[in-house]
């Protein structure tokens, strides 16, 4: 009889642990999805600000007819790779606008341009926050599915990719202006 009680207790503990761990995986996945959509929002905001700034810049550089930015595709539910690529293209676009603004003092001192610079800086800070939140959630999830004993229940899950904005910033992205 005592053996049976111990067996039932052990089975109950294992069942509670399995349900709790399985739920934790799901919660962690939801958090990753939430923070990924945070990155999408921040990327969209940054892109909007950059395109507005590009329009302002173009009005000051009418003789530079070939100043055309490559189209950056943003959509809901992008993969981490696509988000990394879009972010890297935006970095290039921002660098190009800033480089061009150096040659046009009137553009640099324009109120609208300065306002947009402040907006872009804020959007970039939001993007950094979203990236760090996402990577923090990915670290937690990847750790959960890797370490024992929770790894025993993680057969249906694969490791998530990190959003490595800085690495892609340095990558060679083909952009034409």
């Amino acid at each position: 009889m005592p053996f049976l009680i111990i067996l039932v207790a052990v089975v109950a503990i294992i069942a509670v642990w399995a349900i709790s761990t399985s739920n934790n995986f799901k919660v962690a996945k939801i958090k990753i999805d939430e923070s990924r959509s945070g990155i999408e929002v921040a990327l969209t905001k940054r892109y909007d600000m950059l395109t507005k700034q590009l329009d302002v810049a173009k009005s000051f550089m009418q003789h530079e007819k070939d100043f055309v930015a490559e189209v950056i595709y943003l959509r809901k539910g992008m993969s981490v790779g696509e988000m990394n690529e879009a972010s890297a293209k935006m970095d290039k676009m921002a660098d190009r606008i800033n480089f061009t603004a150096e040659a046009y003092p009137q553009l640099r001192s324009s109120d609208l341009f300065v306002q947009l610079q402040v907006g872009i800086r804020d959007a970039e800070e939001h993007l950094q926050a979203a990236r760090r939140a996402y990577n923090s959630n990915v670290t937690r999830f990847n750790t959960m599915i890797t370490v024992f004993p929770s790894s025993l229940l993680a057969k249906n899950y694969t490791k998530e990719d990190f959003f490595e904005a800085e690495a892609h910033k340095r990558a060679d992205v083909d952009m034409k202006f």
Partner: protein
Amino acid sequence: MQPYSNHDLATLRRKKSLYTAGLVIGIVLFFVGMLSGAILLCFPAFAAVAVFGILTNRISKQIKDEICTPIMQSVLADVFERSEYHSRERLPDYLLELEEMQFPFDVDRIEGSDYIHATYQGLNIEMSDIRLVDVRSSGKHTSHVTVFEGLWLVCDFGKPIAADLLLRERQTKVFRFADKWFHSDDNIETENEAFNEKFVIRSRDQHGAFYVLTPHMMERILQADAMGAGDTYIRFMKTGKVHISINSGRDAFEYNASESIEQMKHRFASEIRYVTDLIDILRLSDTIQNNA
């Protein structure tokens, strides 16, 4: 009024020591009279206790009002554009917002002193020494336990901050496990392991929390925390207020019997410098300033 010298301070201290000695002797004689049945001794002893008690209290107030207060006012005038100092007042209850601090203890009574309302580089700040007391009863026995004693600072940035966020110094590894277990929804872990080890980070808004806690900000908070003596609580509120409370177990602006006027001034100035350093850390953060 003529400023007090160290000689005046020493004279007041000597008087205070004499009155305290009179008070102690009065108490002893009163009990001796009670125990030996000499009621005639009790009456003069009781009178001595009353008189020396009043005199001790009066001279303590005189030292606080006539020596500590002018020193404090001169220190504040050196640092702040505008300042008010009330030695016997404290931060009002509505400003403390104790529920928002999520303290790991109960609070039944709030005491405090040395209220300062000042403007630092355009920023509105209020602070005071605060003592929080938990009244614990078990059967007939009631005890008053001081659960928090130290400086409490409230900065008003005037505009909303990105997230409601609490940073609370972590007590032990057991607490860390308990925090993870009971607050898994709103506990946040950053990429800075030293910061995670030091502070419980709690917010319902993960993105907002990361936006406020930039890597640079976390480093600066760790540096500031290393300077302070005590457990630090920092509460960022969407309303634009930031509360910083340091449970140091001491009254930061209290008169110390062994100090000279210069030493007192130096100590008060270093306490105020610590406060302004903390404010500078918050002000340096773009993510607070952009919103605020």
